[in-house]
């Protein structure tokens, strides 16, 4: 295996409505990520993006976003109709081929243009589930109820996840929700989809993110302190929600094991949990103890641009290594209803 590292990360501030189009959003983060690595555009070995046409309602919307990369002379390019975290996985695999030594990954999402409650229904099983139109918050509510019924957690635990996330997002200038809250006060708020309250759900966000990966000596040239990827894996569970134990995440557990998540101590874990109870499920699945700082960025409860928030978790986890504040971190991304698909990326510094 070739050694691959994150050498730079950039993100837009996340907002409820952006005035930028996709190419303008991508331009902002691609330029910043390349500038931070002092990497000229024509030196990028491979370019891969993650986005979804369902968000903008525009077919092949990723092609227009490619304008921000400058695809002339023609470049090596790919796209996944997934969160950018899976684009990063493709780039990591591509770098293993051995003929190139850098890759640019970006993702963009304007969740504000459509109605996510309708759009996310389209990812469900089209025969038995989608025709019933179960909205994503409703499904997350079913999962949260199952978690309460398991006796492992109480509503108070959900509120504490929210309070801790908000206290972190307060110091993240890119987060959308930055107002601190008290867990006890949250329990007085009305239900949205019982037992979920509004604050248990991630906000609707617009934004973009980009990461530059490099191999071996090239990574050491581009960054003083690269975040070396020591393990990366993704796993998926059945489409059928009724066949899953929604209170557990075996796909996260398996991906975490394959990526070597708990082989040695982690300083930081950025978990992509769009609903507060999901963070508790993920923490258990990954076997994280209380010494690990969970979501110092504020996590998806602070901002959750669809198709971007998973890549941001990896970027935030990498950034702690790049800036010297951590030595071993984990970035996690999820996709699908109720944590159906999960990716784990473990990164380390090296002296």
């Amino acid at each position: 295996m070739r050694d691959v590292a994150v050498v730079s990360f950039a993100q837009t501030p996340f907002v409820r409505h952006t005035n930028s189009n996709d190419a303008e959003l991508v331009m902002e983060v691609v330029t910043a990520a390349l500038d931070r690595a002092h990497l000229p555009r024509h030196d990028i070995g491979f370019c891969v993006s993650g986005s979804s046409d369902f968000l903008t309602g525009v077919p092949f919307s990723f092609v227009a976003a490619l304008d921000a990369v400058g695809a002339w002379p023609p470049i090596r390019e790919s796209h996944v109709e997934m969160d950018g975290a899976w684009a990063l996985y493709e780039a990591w695999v591509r770098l293993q081929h051995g003929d190139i030594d850098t890759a640019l990954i970006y993702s963009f999402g304007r969740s504000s243009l459509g109605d996510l409650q309708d759009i996310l229904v389209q990812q469900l099983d089209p025969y038995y589930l989608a025709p019933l139109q179960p909205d994503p918050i409703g499904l997350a509510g079913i999962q949260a109820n199952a978690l309460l019924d398991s006796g492992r957690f109480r509503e108070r635990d959900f509120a504490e996840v929210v309070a801790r996330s908000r206290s972190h997002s307060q110091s993240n200038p890119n987060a959308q929700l930055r107002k601190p809250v008290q867990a006890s006060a949250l329990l007085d708020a009305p239900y949205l989809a019982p037992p979920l309250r509004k604050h248990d759900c991630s906000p609707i966000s617009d934004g973009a993110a980009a990461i530059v990966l490099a191999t071996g000596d090239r990574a050491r040239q581009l960054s003083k302190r690269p975040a070396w990827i020591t393990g990366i894996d993704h796993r998926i569970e059945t489409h059928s929600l009724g066949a899953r134990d929604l209170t557990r995440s075996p796909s996260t557990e398996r991906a975490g094991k394959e990526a070597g998540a708990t082989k040695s101590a982690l300083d930081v874990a950025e978990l992509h949990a769009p609903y507060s109870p999901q963070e508790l499920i993920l923490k258990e699945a990954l076997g994280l103890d209380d010494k690990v700082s969970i979501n110092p960025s504020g996590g998806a409860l602070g901002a959750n641009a669809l198709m971007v928030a998973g890549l941001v978790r990896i970027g935030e986890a990498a950034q702690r290594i790049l800036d010297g504040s951590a030595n071993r971190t984990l970035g996690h991304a999820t996709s699908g209803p109720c944590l159906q698909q999960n990716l784990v990326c473990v990164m380390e510094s090296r002296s």
Partner: protein
Amino acid sequence: MSEIIKGMIAPVKLAYTMNAGRASSRFLRGLYAHKILGQRCTVCHKVNVPPRGVCPTCGVPTEDDVQLSETGTVTTFCVINIQFDAKARELPYACASIILDGADSTLFHLVQEAAVDQIRMGMRVRAVWGPTPLYSLESISHFRPTGEPDAPFESYKEHL
């Protein structure tokens, strides 16, 4: 009965609010005011129209708006003989790729006020504004021949 089900009805309706972004919004406001705006790239100095806030060749932001001429040259065209648009048009009609004077990328639009068998590469054309200003390329009703001599092939060969 063991009949195989071969179809089911699953209606889907998704509504979107369009947001053109900064550069495209300026372009669309320009069309409403009967102006065609492009953007010049600071690296390759080419003028892109419609502008999208970035130069697709160089991958750099573009902020330098340029008002373009209403006249241009047909670089290539096609004659349409079937109805496929929701808007029924009189058949046959021609759609052309047009390089506006001062621009480095082409626009697609209708060429009318000419018999379709007279439309040719190099033909000089001018925008005809429609009766109602719109935030759309349809603010231009169509392009019509100017009657000038055809542009030499050399002048537009890089835009084919």
